[in-house]
């Protein structure tokens, strides 16, 4: 398990993980930054209850997921820029098919909160369904079935976009 690093070390080591979850969940860099800060500030307040770095990482992942879900729901009811507006650059020089990447990100960003987070936990954080279930307090079977259904939906969305492009 190891001893617990300092708060600033925890921030350095895990800020990208938290930011990435938030960014893919919220599709907005500024909001993702704010959320990242709030997650770590919450960790800071609860540091006394953290036992190890592993514990901290799990705590952060869970907090990032929960807050992202809350933020998605909250922004749904607020006037202002739509959640679909992607503030990050849509094109990355390293991507072989930038358009496909952008479409996939948009499709994920259009999912309801929980399926969106499940997708991020599985395909960004590379967590197994039983790990996701433990983190989010859900039955494993539910996680698996929701992921399976979400994949079908995402593939359907992608096919629809391809159709639209073909006929455009």
């Amino acid at each position, binding site marked *: 398990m190891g001893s617990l690093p300092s708060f600033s070390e925890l921030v350095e080591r895990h800020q990208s993980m938290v930011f990435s979850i938030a960014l893919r969940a919220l599709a907005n860099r500024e909001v993702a930054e704010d959320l990242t800060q709030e997650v770590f500030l919450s960790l800071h307040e609860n540091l006394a209850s953290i036992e190890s770095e592993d514990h901290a990482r799990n705590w952060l992942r869970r907090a990032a997921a929960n807050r992202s879900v809350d933020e998605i729901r909250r922004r749904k009811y607020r006037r202002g820029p739509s959640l679909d507006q992607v503030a990050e650059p849509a094109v990355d020089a390293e991507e072989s098919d930038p358009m496909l990447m952008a479409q996939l990100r948009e499709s994920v960003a259009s999912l309801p909160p929980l399926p969106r987070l499940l997708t991020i936990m599985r395909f960004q954080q590379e967590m197994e369904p039983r790990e996701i279930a433990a*983190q989010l307090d859900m039955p494993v079977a539910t996680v698996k079935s929701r992921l399976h*259904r979400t994949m079908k939906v995402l593939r359907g969305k992608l096919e629809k976009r391809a159709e639209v492009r073909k006929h455009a």
Partner: protein
Amino acid sequence: MRANMNLKQITAVVFFSTLSLTGQELDLSFLKGLEAKAKESTTINLGPEQIKLMMGFSGEGSKELQGLGKNIERVQVTTLEFDKEGMYNVADMDNLRAKLKTPEYVPFISVKERNGFTEIVMRKGPKGMNGFVILSAEPRELTIVNIVGQLDLASLGSLTGKFGIPNIHMGSSGKGEGKGEGKSGNKDEDEEK
């Protein structure tokens, strides 16, 4: 003709007016004994004059603060932090809780926790709610917040993330950071389309 009130009625009006005036500032003198035992304590008591002074503040964030403070008459906060559990008795708060059971107050939320509780009680005013009281008893911390006036939550929202004010999600169903969000608050909302 009802132009002249009799003495009984006048006394009643004065009595109840006085009650409502003094009812706005909470008497927290019972905490004096606990303050001595606390590792740290914070006491804030801002009345109308001080809030008026604050409205003249012209530094960073003044606009948001003015938005927040414009309808507030009093802000009272006492927080006591203790070194370890068991240094105060939750029953110490019973006296205060009893005072908040008068018709002037409306219970809003009460959550019992392992070794304590958190309660919010709303205060009635002539035009609806006129503030609230938060009582929070945790194993190593006791907090009392008394806000008199109309707290503009939209302005508070604009201040979150600044001046050390944390985010508070209005209408969110999030559970504790340490616990996962196993079930969606809205099943329809979480169905993929």
